[in-house]
């Protein structure tokens, strides 16, 4: 009995401390986990940057199951966390049930831009535009006229990446061939560097001499094999140029870290609504640094930068896979 009492006592103390910690932000990672070297890790980096700069604290959870999505949202909202930052398109549906129940809590969701909820900040990225630019670089660097794309799972988001990439390639070289493969059909596909390596070898045997990996942790294997086999690779999400200096052509940046950092910095006053981070907002782009300076000539960089400006100005339009669930230049 006394054991039970001490259990309850401890639980009560815990509940109180949880209640006292008002207005701490919370961060909900998607199933890939905090250290996926990609999407979730970028969010982690953004949150860490906020914590270091402000000395603030935040709550976090790495989801393990689908049922936990709604659970984590409600539990954090009930504990007074504000804003609650969530990652990934799979949070859209749970958010549309939970957010109306907590009108005083602000929610932030990354990779979602189609909900109609007053207390949700939705941040979408124009991945197709960034992918278009790295596609151009790939086509300019390719000698064989064949470039590769390696995705994680065959989901609309990854098709969106692939479609922008293929359009960029074809814009430079209409005769180029784009070889596109997906890593797998289970969530393990996001973290399977061995399979990424095998797919890279398969694409090399089909003539590819530049490969673009949009596959989370799997991309580590793609970049490694490309470097070992002497072809070029393109990283994704974070700047991965430094992983293999002189072997990674560029990286398609998707500044999830900035989106998370800004949301946390704004705190409870975070502005809600739909925000698209495209080329103009520097939400997406291609990475240039000392590691790939020798790979991208000034002329190449100038051409791509000119196109970047044209896309921002609306002179060049990149078709989005989302628009009609199909891609003009690539079959899935």
């Amino acid at each position, binding site marked *: 009995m006394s054991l039970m009492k001490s*259990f*309850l006592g*401890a*639980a009560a103390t*815990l509940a109180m401390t*949880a209640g006292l910690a008002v207005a701490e932000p919370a961060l909900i990672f998607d*199933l890939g*986990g905090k250290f996926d070297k990609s999407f979730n890790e970028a969010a982690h980096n953004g949150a860490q940057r906020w914590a270091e700069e402000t000395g603030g604290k935040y*709550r976090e*959870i*790495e989801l*393990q*199951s*689908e*049922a*936990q999505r*709604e*659970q*984590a949202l*409600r*539990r*954090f909202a009930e504990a007074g966390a504000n804003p609650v930052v969530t990652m990934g*398109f*799979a949070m*859209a*549906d749970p958010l549309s049930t939970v957010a109306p129940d907590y009108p005083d809590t602000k929610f932030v969701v990354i990779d*979602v831009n*189609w909900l109609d909820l007053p207390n949700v900040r939705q941040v979408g990225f124009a991945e197709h535009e960034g992918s278009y630019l790295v596609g151009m670089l790939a086509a300019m660097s390719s000698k064989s006229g064949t470039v590769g794309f390696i995705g994680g*799972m*065959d*989901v*609309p*988001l990854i098709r969106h990446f692939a479609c922008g990439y293929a359009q960029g390639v074809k814009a430079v070289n209409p005769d180029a061939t784009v070889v596109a493969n997906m890593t797998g*059909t*289970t*969530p393990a596909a996001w973290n399977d560097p061995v399979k990424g390596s095998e797919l890279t070898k398969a694409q090399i045997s089909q003539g590819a001499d530049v490969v673009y990996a949009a596959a989370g942790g799997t991309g580590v294997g793609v970049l490694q094999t490309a470097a070992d086999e002497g072809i070029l690779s393109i990283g994704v999400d974070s700047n991965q140029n430094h992983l293999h200096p002189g072997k990674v052509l560029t990286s398609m940046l998707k500044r999830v870290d900035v989106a998370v950092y800004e949301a946390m910095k704004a705190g409870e006053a975070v502005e809600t609504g739909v925000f698209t981070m495209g080329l103009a907002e520097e939400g997406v782009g291609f990475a240039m640094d000392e590691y790939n300076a020798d790979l991208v000539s000034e002329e190449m960089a100038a051409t791509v930068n000119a196109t970047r400006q044209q896309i921002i100005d609306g002179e060049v339009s990149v078709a989005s896979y*989302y628009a009609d*669930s199909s891609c003009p230049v690539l079959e899935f």
Partner: protein
Amino acid sequence: MEKMPKWADVVLIPLISLLLAAGLSALVILAIGESPTEALNLMIEGALGSTYGWGYTLYYATNFLFTGLAVAVAYHAGLFNIGGEGQAMLGGLGVAYACLFIPWPHWTVALLFASVAAALFGAAWAAIPAYLQAKRGSHVVITTIMFNFIAAALLNYMLVNILKPEGGFDPATARFPDAVHLPSLHEILLPLGINFSKNAPANVSLLVALAACVLVWLLIWRTWLGYEIRSYGKSETGARYAGMSPVKITMIAMLISGALCGMMAINNVMGEAERLVLNATEGAGFIGIAVALMGRNHPFGVFLAAILFGFLYQGGAELALWTSIPRELIVVIQALVILFTGALDNMVRMPLEKIFIALRKEKA
């Protein structure tokens, strides 16, 4: 003569194994600098301390009941069904088709027919490995595990290309219509004056799972078919000599097993998500193996083990929410329980048997 009394086999061994697993988990938690007692408090409070916690614990338990029973039925026929994951995915597809394309008048009718659809899809997915085992001798362990991957690929294709609603970005079906909404425990218990948490996902399919427990018990121990299944599982040659058909028993046991796995979908797809998502099963098919092992392949044991694993899942979620214990460690704790209760069974059993034999000698 039995080496030890039945209660020791059924209660004592799992209990000691559990304590060992808990002890080792406590050491691991201590090693990363967190307090094991606090972690235990959090798990118990979070999983069993409120109707909200119970609602999640029972929701997970419902999943594990179906898959655990499925593994148990196959096991009695000497078959090891590792394909629960794939069969449950296909069950989800069956439920999605039943709920999306037929306008049901009431949830009761929908539940009945969705269960049938889920069972049929699950059974169909088990039928091919069963046939290959029965007729060709291809080992069911290999084929069922391969079918898990084929199921994942099929589900992926269906969701991305066919079932995804127009203009959707998420690889998932549209939400099911309100008419097929299954009452949650909150809605069931409210008329009885019990205010069960509104936000917990446990629903009426828990009752279906409990009914399935009773039916499986009746099937295995009270019917002619169950007798055949058990005889075949104990001794194939003996069963053959007695005139039983190995092909028939293999097929039937696997079909029942697949149907039970498929029926898990009425809980997670129809009851909880109310739409079919890519990652709907999340390993419940594999947890079913541990549940069946721990439950000694008896429906009541499966029931207890399912509750335990439900507790571990929900308690683990609470740990992840309120402590900095990383989720990998929560998986370690769950794995330790599986390891001790399933794989290291003999480690506890053998010394215990010796103790009981020694005790008996003393008496004699």
